[in-house]
């Protein structure tokens, strides 16, 4: 859209320029009598137009009064205008003694600058006569491109047809460049401020590319914007320092930008170039001050040529780079270079060296391509950064998923192992149970049968105990671990027939206590055996009439289990009561403390559980 607009403008301009000489009615004034006042010295002479002040009076400010006599047109059928492509930094235009237009103060050097834009001045009706005198007075500051051009007078339509396009071009295109540059600058600046490298190891690193773009484009906008500043806030030399600084910043940022894109940043050549650029920036105020205050304009030209000297090799290197890494953006950069570097050199030559008055820099138009390239690369860089982030996120997500899967597999494996262990433990428990309980009883029954000495009653007793053991071991499977109350209850229930069959009175004094966390199912089974053993002892050997079972919770947690009988008792030192050894072993196995006290009439088996 923008480029098409420019195309239209450009072709219009060409047509306008080409159609210029064909206008017969237009009067062109190419000679004038000049009264020049330089450093208080007055001088009058005949001069040819255009008259560029800087090329005639290098390094000298002054005032000039240019008089031109010309014959009026035969008949004035429509409004006439005069056209000046440039004028002085201040000027005054008089026709036949009447003031036509005045801009700036002729007496105040180094203030306003009205030399930057072309002027079209209306000639009021009836002013043109057969003989006319045009007097153009100008103020010229040093190096400020003041002067008097070839003056064109003619019917408004004719002049406008030939110059309007150029005037519009100069004004409008500058506006477009400024607006576009500012937009790109703002965009790049926002990106520079907000976008940081998301990779953790990079810290909060910002992308310098955005900063270069922002600096380049804002500087360029300032440089081009100077066209519209007729009354700078600063005196001419200070203003010149500022404007040249903008130009230098643009050049530096462009070079840095290109080096960044090419991936040369950090290299040895790049570091040297950076130092040179920094040096050029630092000496800029001095160079410009000297150039414009002492009239040594060549200093400024040499300084600018230094930039050109840096741009030339960069262009070549980048061309090679683009050749190798073949992508659209690289070639866009090459195109921008290939167009702009020659244009820049031409401007440098035309304006600074040849100082042909009336020519204008073309870089401001061609550099638009730089702006476009910059914008395109910034957008591309942003897109790539986003893509990187997305790839990183995807990568991260897949890695997390993978880790999760691994974790799941590990968990499954662990579960399989745990189940395996559980089965093994269960098998071990059942085997031990059978060995200690049913197995030992049945083998005892077999021995009793084999010996032939056991009575039926004894045999019955053994077999009953065997079945009791089996029932107890089934109970043990369903007993909640640590629930000693439930354990005693089931034991009583299972032994109830045997207790009934004996003449022993049972005193049941069992508290409801919380399951003991340190008594696991293995310990439960041991405890079951121990109580069973103690009860069997009482029923079979103690000759007791009373059996008391107590369960008490203890203040510090744990429980105290007591089996008390009023039987004959036994001497702990001399007699080894049956099963006492096994009681001790089991107590040790479950970490319980076992105390047996015995005297005639009172035997206490106390098991203290943690």
């Amino acid at each position: 859209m923008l480029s098409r607009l420019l195309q239209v403008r450009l072709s219009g301009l060409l047509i306008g320029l080409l159609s210029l000489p064909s206008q017969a009615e237009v009067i062109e004034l190419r000679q004038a009598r000049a009264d020049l006042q330089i450093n208080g010295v007055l001088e009058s002479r005949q001069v040819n137009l255009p008259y560029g002040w800087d090329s005639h009076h290098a390094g000298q400010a002054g005032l000039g009064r240019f008089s031109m006599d010309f014959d009026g047109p035969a008949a004035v059928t429509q409004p006439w205008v005069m056209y000046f492509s440039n004028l002085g930094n201040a000027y005054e235009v008089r026709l036949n003694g009447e003031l036509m237009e005045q801009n700036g103060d002729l007496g105040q050097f180094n203030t306003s600058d009205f030399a930057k834009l072309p002027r079209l001045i209306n000639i009021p009706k009836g002013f043109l006569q057969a003989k006319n005198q045009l007097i153009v007075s100008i103020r010229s500051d040093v190096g400020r491109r003041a002067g008097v051009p070839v003056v064109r007078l003619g019917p408004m339509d004719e002049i406008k047809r030939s110059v309007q396009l150029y005037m519009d071009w100069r004004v409008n295109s500058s506006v477009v460049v400024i607006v576009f540059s500012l937009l790109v600058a703002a965009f790049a600046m926002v990106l520079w401020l907000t976008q940081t490298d998301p990779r953790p190891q990079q810290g909060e690193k910002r992308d310098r590319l955005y900063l270069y773009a922002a600096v380049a484009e804002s500087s360029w906008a300032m440089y081009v914007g100077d066209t519209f500043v007729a009354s700078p806030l600063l005196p001419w030399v200070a203003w010149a320092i500022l404007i040249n600084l903008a130009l230098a910043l643009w050049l530096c940022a462009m070079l840095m930008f290109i080096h960044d894109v090419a991936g040369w940043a950090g290299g040895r050549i790049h570091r040297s170039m950076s130092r040179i650029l920094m040096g050029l920036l630092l000496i800029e105020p001095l160079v410009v001050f000297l150039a414009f205050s002492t009239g040594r304009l060549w200093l400024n030209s040499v300084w600018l040529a230094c930039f050109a000297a840096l741009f030339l090799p960069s262009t070549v290197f980048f061309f090679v780079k683009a050749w190798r890494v073949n992508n659209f953006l690289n070639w866009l950069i090459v195109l921008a270079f290939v167009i702009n570097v020659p244009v820049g050199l031409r401007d440098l030559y035309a304006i600074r060296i040849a100082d042909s008055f009336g020519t204008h820099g073309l870089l401001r138009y061609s550099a638009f391509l730089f702006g476009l390239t910059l914008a395109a690369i910034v957008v591309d860089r942003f897109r790539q950064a986003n893509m990187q982030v997305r790839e990183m996120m995807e990568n991260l997500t897949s890695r997390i998923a993978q880790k999760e899967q691994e974790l799941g597999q590990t968990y499954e494996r662990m579960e399989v192992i745990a189940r395996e262990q559980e089965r093994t433990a269960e098998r071990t428990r059942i085997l031990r149970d059978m060995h200690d309980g049913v197995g030992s009883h049945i083998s005892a029954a077999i021995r009793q049968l084999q010996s032939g000495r056991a009575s039926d009653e004894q045999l019955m007793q053994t077999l009953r105990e065997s079945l009791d053991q089996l029932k107890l071991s089934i109970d043990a499977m369903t007993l909640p671990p640590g629930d000693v109350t439930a354990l005693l209850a089931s034991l009583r229930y299972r032994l109830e027939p045997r207790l009934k069959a004996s003449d022993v009175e049972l005193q049941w004094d069992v508290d409801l206590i919380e399951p003991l966390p340190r008594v696991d199912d293995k310990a439960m089974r041991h405890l079951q055996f121990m109580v069973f053993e103690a009860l069997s002892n009482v029923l079979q050997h103690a000759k007791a009439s009373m059996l008391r079972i107590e369960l008490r919770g203890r203040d510090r947690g744990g429980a105290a289990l007591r089996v008390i009988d009023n039987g004959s008792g036994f001497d702990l030192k001399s007699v080894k009561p049956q099963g006492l050894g096994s009681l001790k072993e089991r107590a040790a196995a479950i970490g319980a403390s076992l105390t047996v006290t015995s005297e005639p009439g009172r035997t206490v088996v106390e098991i203290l559980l943690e």
Partner: protein
Amino acid sequence: MDKIWQVLVVEDDPQMREFFASSVARAAQLQMAAAVGSVAEALAWLDQPTHQVDVLLTDLGLPDGSGLEVIRHATRLNPACEPLVISMFGDEDNVLASIEAGALGYIHKDSAPDDIAQTIFLMLGGASPISPMIARKVLSKYAGSRAPAPNAKDPLVDSVQAGPTENAGNQVLSPREQDVLSLISRGFSYSEISRLQSVTIHTVQTHIKNLYTKLSVHSKSEAVFEATRLGLLQSPRH
């Protein structure tokens, strides 16, 4: 108790079946109606209109199915029938399932012959047996949030303090029943419980008997509820 009770024995082990039959035969008030060895035979026998059974003794693990089917069938035909489960170990899962199916008690396979008749008479007299393990299981399954207080020396005090349970709407066990169950689960005998609770043994027995009925009914209503929920039964239209 002049009535002669008709007894059906369902047991697949011929020796055991013979043992139960002879144990029953020794009691004057019990009469063996039949002794069969499978679910199919039992159902066929029950379906004969002339056959009447007052006491059903059934094993659970039968070759062609579960004794629970026989219990359900018998109680459906004759709600007054009193089923007893023959259990080797009296293990809680099997016994509880039997109670929920409608059994009113269980007999251990290793019981003495006299004890078998004794158990039948006790049951007929309204006393159902319950072991501490089963009491604990019933408590944990039906008592809901009203768990026995830890280290409680006197469950009566606790029960008063605890008050009605939170899920009273879904209440299966009455507080008194829970107290009795709690004491049973701690190993106390019926007589000890009656002394602790200051009630007669008969009252304790009634609690247990009621409990049996309740669990059976509850399990039936639960089954209906489940079936309705699953869409197997249509809910009644209003």
